[in-house]
């Protein structure tokens, strides 16, 4: 099949503003991933196309971009999604809400982290399960940059930071519960979430992001996990 990539291009050393570039790739197959197609453009047609990528298997979180209007990891989008057709057109742009350095490369703020012999400390299977979902986060920023509250107000810590906080707040071993809840109760924190739900489908790891945010809100109201 033939794929046309419509890519939002911007080179700070040449361009006053961003523009759309189109690249046609022949002989694509259904198991080709968008990342491979971007590599084909870069390696065969235009080496100036710039993007971050590393593992190419959905675990490092480097290649978050907006593909046909949705935040995705380019390495996790296969052409099969587009069905069995001869010609496909895919639109690719950088994630929104963060300054663009060059092409798909955003100026990503260092991810917000709220942190956290004898034998190991004991923890029941149920207590471990309580925060399993949020341990999956790879800090790719797909959730935060799909959030209208974040677009409107860059001071908002955003869903990714709350997911990180959730991972510790609901870990029974953690000793800074109240401190974390206080940070999360700040005006630019969890209450900026208006449950738009954009973050949940944007997560390439399948984390129930909005649910986690809701659980943090509840914990603040209850004053505990």
């Amino acid at each position: 099949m033939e794929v046309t990539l419509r890519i939002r291009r911007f080179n700070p050393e040449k361009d006053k503003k961003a523009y759309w570039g189109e690249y046609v790739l022949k002989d694509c197959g259904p198991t080709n991933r968008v990342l491979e197609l971007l590599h084909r453009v870069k390696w065969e047609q235009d080496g100036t196309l710039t993007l971050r990528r590393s593992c190419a298997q959905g675990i490092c979180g480097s290649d978050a971009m907006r593909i046909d209007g949705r935040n995705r990891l380019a390495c996790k989008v296969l052409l099969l999604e587009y069905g069995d057709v001869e010609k496909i057109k895919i639109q690719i742009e950088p994630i929104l809400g963060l300054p663009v350095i060059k092409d798909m490369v955003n100026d990503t703020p260092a991810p917000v982290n709220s942190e956290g012999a004898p034998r190991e400390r004991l923890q029941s299977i149920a207590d471990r399960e309580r925060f399993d979902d949020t341990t999956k986060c790879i800090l790719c920023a797909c959730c935060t940059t799909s959030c209208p509250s974040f677009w409107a107000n860059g001071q908002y810590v955003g869903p990714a930071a709350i997911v990180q906080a959730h991972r510790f707040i609901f870990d029974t071993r953690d000793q800074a519960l109240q401190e974390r809840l206080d940070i999360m109760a700040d005006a630019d924190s969890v209450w900026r979430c208006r449950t738009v739900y954009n973050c949940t489908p944007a997560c390439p790891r399948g984390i129930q992001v909005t649910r986690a945010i809701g659980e943090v809100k509840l914990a603040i109201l209850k004053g505990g996990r």
Partner: protein
Amino acid sequence: MQTHQFDCLIVGAGGAGLMAALHASKGTKTAVLSKLYPTRSHTGAALGGIGAALGNLEEDRWEWHAFDTIKGGDYLTDQDAADILAREAIDAVIDLEHMGLPFDRTEDGKISQRRFGGHTNNETGKPVRRACHAADRTGHMILQTLYQQCIKNNVNFFDEFHVVDLIKNGDRYAGVAAINIDTGELHLFQGKAIIFATGGWGKVWEVTSNAHSLTGDGAAICFRRGVPMEDMEFYQFHPTGLYPTGFLITEAVRGEGGVLLNGRGERFMEKYAPKIKDLASRDVVSRAIYTELKEGNGIKGQRYVHLDVTPATVNRYLAEAGETRRIDEHFIESKLAETVDQGRTYAGVDPVREPMPIQPTAHYAMGGIPTNNDGSVIADAQNTPIPGLYAAGECACVSVHGANRLGTNSLVDLVVFGRRAGIHANDYVKQAEFVPLPPDAGKEIEAELKRIRISSGKTRPAILRARMQTTMMDNVGVFREKPNMEKALDTLRELKESFKKDLTVDDRGSRFNTDVLEAWELGCLLDIAEVTAISALNRQESRGGHARDDFPKRDDVNWLKHTLAHLQPDGQITIDYKPVVILKYQPKERVY
């Protein structure tokens, strides 16, 4: 050029680099430089577990872990290093738990453990539950936890600073040169101690589990600046790469009961390793798969076999083995969540319901920058340490993995030897002086990067890279023989010539110029590929991950020794040897 000064410089921010950083930074000025954001490092892709003889589910001893490591390494493992690895693994895992790593739990709340290839109860020879795990994203959790701890402890990070050279002043190492990827500016970093923790070089081969970023930069830089490379012929092909991408399917799939089946539906590992079957060492299983494929036993005549972890199949073989344990779909979904997702996303296969297509995939470098047990880089066969230079993790060769690494031991290596390198460097910088930067520091690499940026030949880096990857896959892969390796060397030299004389890139700018940096990385890959092929051609025996059709037997009389490859000033590579440390275990035939 901007100049920075730190007591300790750490190059690479995966598990080994971050572990080293936590310890090196205590009371010193330490900086971590990484060409990626730290959490993008490939430690995050390690899946199944970290081995430690905690004995939480059944009897286990660290001495057994040490022996399994030595046997797994086909007796090329230095036995003092294996003892350290196995003993300190226990502390390291407890340490990680206290840092907050969310391990899975047993019924009584302890860290849960599972089986992994080559890890056995030494008395019965049966597989033992030794791999501590957080679902099948153990590496991800190690990386996240260590990064969180580094942030908490105010470690200095230079993210997206690509280290491209090691700066020498006479015989001494004074610092590193790094490109700020965002601006394209070259910075000089002076350091009393430099720790390389840059990972492996899977991108030398066509089919690999490795990230695009694993281009062997750290090893290549050291090699070019006078450091020998140890045991480069020993490169591990992991048996279960997803077909056709080569992405890793964790050994935990077999640890939980999954089996390998050929095109005739036979569980062929029963022939090759009657005792522990699918859980034999990785080199053994990869060769078995290649042999099956050669005999026409692939699935539907294709170049892959099946890995089957569906409950029906697993339970059938558990029953046959007389085990009472049974698994269901929920078990697979939760214990192997990443694997299930990968199968569904990348192969269109649902591992819960159908077998996965798999092929061996280039996975892990046993060889690399030679170090002693403190992480100090050594200069020669007499183990003379180089003051201030350290290496840890996959880029280093302690040698704890010998000729073949056991599953889970890469994560153990990171935390145990990353910590040792960090602690030792911390001691060192407290009494050492800075080596002055020479007046021409960074000039040579600046000129080389400029040469690439303005090159106007005819060959794109991607073309050279693809040719290198196929020639290495075909000729310096799972099975090797002299004429093929000679052919590979000829090709590599031709490619290196094109790289020097006929390269072209499109991006002539400064900012975020990944076109130039990818080309520079290709230069590293070509150097690494060459020293790998030369070391492989030189070793006339089969041992662990190095299997020669023309020398099919292990030869302890002539080859029970480590290879050290040296780059001479004229560009020639010469080889000498270093003895293997043998303590308790005399080499025996390796049977699984």
